């Protein structure tokens, strides 16, 4: 077990940095249209997930996906930033995963550059990294055990 006393030899390893997923795309539509698709609950439901989103800072809401084995499909969120036509951010929590989603809109020639950044993936949380740990080839050796553990909670 490691504790607060860190070895200096390990300091070059950024073990405590969280990971981020970034997806960017330019859409041939104005920011106003993108903003509506991102913030109007019924529109959001058509491309992302069913939700009770309201663009008010501090509001809690949920995304609800179709439940799958081992997951009830619920994502708990709280609105962090509402900067119309420019930025929108909310927390994204499910199954012990605590991340933040940040949308950034930038007008381009005849369109909008949309950037989605989901940050806060903790590489030290084994629950987040079962797939990476086992790798695709060994995934199966571990899967049954992982499923077994999940069922015993």
């Amino acid at each position, binding site marked *: 077990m490691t504790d607060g006393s860190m070895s200096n030899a390990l300091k070059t390893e950024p073990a405590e940095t969280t990971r981020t*997923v970034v997806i960017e795309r330019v*859409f041939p539509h104005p920011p106003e249209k993108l903003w509506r698709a991102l913030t109007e609950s019924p529109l959001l439901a058509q*491309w992302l997930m069913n939700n009770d989103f309201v663009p008010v800072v501090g509001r809690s809401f949920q995304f609800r996906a179709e439940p799958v084995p*081992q*997951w009830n499909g619920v994502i708990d969120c709280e609105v962090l930033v509402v900067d119309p036509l420019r930025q929108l951010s909310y927390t994204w929590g499910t*199954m012990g*995963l605590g991340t933040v989603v940040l949308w950034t809109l930038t007008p381009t020639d005849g369109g909008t550059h949309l950037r*989605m950044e989901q940050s806060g993936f903790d590489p030290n949380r084994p629950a987040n990294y079962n*797939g990476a740990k086992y790798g695709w080839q060994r995934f*199966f050796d571990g899967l049954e055990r992982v499923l077994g553990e999940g069922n015993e909670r």
Partner: protein
Amino acid sequence: MNRSHANPVFRALADPTRRAIFERLTRHGEQTVHALTRYAGVSQPAVSKHLTVLRRARLVGHRRAGRETHYRARPDALAPMADWLTLYGAFWRDRFDRLETILERMDP
């Protein structure tokens, strides 16, 4: 015990060809049966059988366009078990595709 619910997923991915097909769909997005057949190196009926198993495990979705059937991964089916970064990368790319479609349909 709800272990039996997980078994279709387990069985579907236990086969290396199916695992390869699923992985390809996760990494490269929607593919036709033809494209998957070229990639998998087995006959098209074999690929179709594999896709049926993946579909029953709800690991892939499909849509028909003309004479072609397009398949895509449903990576959220693996959410509890796989690498979050890979999953969410695939998840958001898929959602960006849907967003593109919705934007076309919205009033200007």
